[in-house]
């Protein structure tokens, strides 16, 4: 069915080589994706959330036929990804790897015309479609400049435009707002919403939870190759039950966080450092009752509390609850 994705038990094992000296190498298997099953419905914006290295891009590469799965199968727009790979490619618009994937010595218009040719548009249709995309993305002023002279944001916009050349019913966008400034990211999200209003199904990967929360109807949380949760955003938040989230800022030694973790009503804690300030996120079954005990335990363990704020459950909290880590912390660790 057009605008849909069904994936069943998709797994991908990469073989990597660990170099040992000049010629020796040790082979290692890396499970990039482990038995991921999901469905994307027609006309929805489906968020794929997870830190860098979680397996989002591997999943997208399998769905767009760039990679073969080690096991499992998937249908995209009703076409089998291995048996009808050309039909899958023809009916998917994909933005991968951001500003890479463009010819930097060519102009924006020349890039778009070339990519239109790869989708078998006639010479007249290539020019027409390129003009439409340039107008849609407001690239008119820079359309005839070499891409190498573009800012990062302009390159990202053009890469997004490239995903639109075949006017596909399903758009797969891999972190499209990376490197965009706040107004440009907001502009791009508005275009994504408009395209969705026109009936396009959109799979949107991001590691920015707030972005997913505002844009996506349903989301899947993926981490270390495993699908941890799938559902509507409110549904996922509600899945935390009556848990309350309390954020504590200040000077918080690790042993204090450890002591809090030992409290019976505390379900999960995460200690992170943001702008030189420690931030302890505590999920507990009953926030109000826990708070005095929390303060007492932290003080007894040498913590200096600067700010305590009870907060509404966010997708970030859902991620913490499912993985035990914050997304920012995980993204930093993976990018090292």
């Amino acid at each position, binding site marked *: 069915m057009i605008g849909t994705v069904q994936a069943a038990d998709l797994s991908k094992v990469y073989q990597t080589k660990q170099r040992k000296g000049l010629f020796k190498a040790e082979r290692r298997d890396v499970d990039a994706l482990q038995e991921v099953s999901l469905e994307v419905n027609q006309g929805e914006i489906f968020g794929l959330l997870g830190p860098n290295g979680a397996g989002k891009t591997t999943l997208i590469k399998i769905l767009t*036929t760039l990679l073969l799965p080690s096991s499992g199968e998937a249908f995209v727009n009703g076409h089998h990804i291995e048996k009808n790979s050309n039909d899958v490619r023809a009916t998917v618009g994909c933005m991968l790897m951001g500003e890479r*994937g463009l010819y930097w*010595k060519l102009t924006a218009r020349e890039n778009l015309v*070339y990519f239109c040719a*790869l989708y*078998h548009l006639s010479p007249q249709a290539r020019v027409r479609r390129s003009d439409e995309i340039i107008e849609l993305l407001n690239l008119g002023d820079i359309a005839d400049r070499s891409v190498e002279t573009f800012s990062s944001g302009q390159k990202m916009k053009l890469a997004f435009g*490239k995903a639109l050349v075949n006017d596909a019913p399903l758009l797969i966008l891999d972190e499209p707002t990376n490197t965009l400034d706040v107004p440009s990211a907001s502009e791009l999200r508005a275009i994504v919403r408009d395209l969705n209003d026109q009936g396009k199904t959109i799979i949107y990967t991001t590691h920015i939870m707030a972005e997913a929360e505002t844009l996506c109807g349903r989301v899947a949380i993926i981490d270390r190759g495993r699908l941890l949760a799938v559902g509507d955003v409110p549904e996922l938040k509600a899945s935390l039950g009556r848990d309350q989230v309390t954020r504590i800022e200040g000077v918080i030694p690790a042993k204090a966080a450890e002591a809090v973790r030992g409290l019976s009503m505390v379900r999960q804690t995460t200690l992170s450092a943001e702008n030189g300030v420690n931030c302890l996120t505590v999920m507990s079954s009953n926030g109000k009752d826990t708070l005095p005990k929390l303060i007492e335990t932290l003080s007894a363990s040498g913590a200096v509390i600067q700010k305590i704020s009870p907060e509404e459950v966010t997708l970030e909290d859902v991620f913490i609850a499912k993985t035990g880590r914050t997304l920012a912390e995980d993204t930093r660790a993976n990018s090292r």
Partner: protein
Amino acid sequence: MRMTTAVLRTNVSTMLASARMRLLNLARYPGQLVMDFIIPIVLASMPILLGRATAGDQAAAVFEANTGTGNYVAYMIIGSSVFSMVSYAFWHIAYWVRWEMETGTLEALYLAPTSRLWVASGVGLYSLVRSVISMIVSYFLGSWILGVNPLQGELMLAFVFILVGAVPLYGVALLFGALVLKF
């Protein structure tokens, strides 16, 4: 897919777009174009000048006795141009694959529902056009610099032989490109 006229037309159009895009890209590197013209002349000049230095006035006669033509300058320039063409065929295709891999455009190419063979043919066509242009310019420029008449002898016959030889040459070069991609 059955090769109907419409499919063939589409594939040829993709091939031409692929070649055109690369020629446009090349046009943005004028220094590279100049190098394409100069390299065959430099390659030919070394044995030509060496031959003149060692054989003196008898260079043309000795050369004619061995090869059938006394125009050793044109002979060497054609030879170096053919050498450049062979070298370019491998470099353009193998380097193209590697370069597209590194810049990320290869994935963009793989995302499209187009035949990779026809895109690769476009790259072959681009390389052939680039090599033939550089060969012609180098030949006339080299003849002028080294002071010989470029229009003597069986020039057209040499050109036909080179073009016929280009077909298997690009086949082998594409195979080489596939090996680069694999390893």
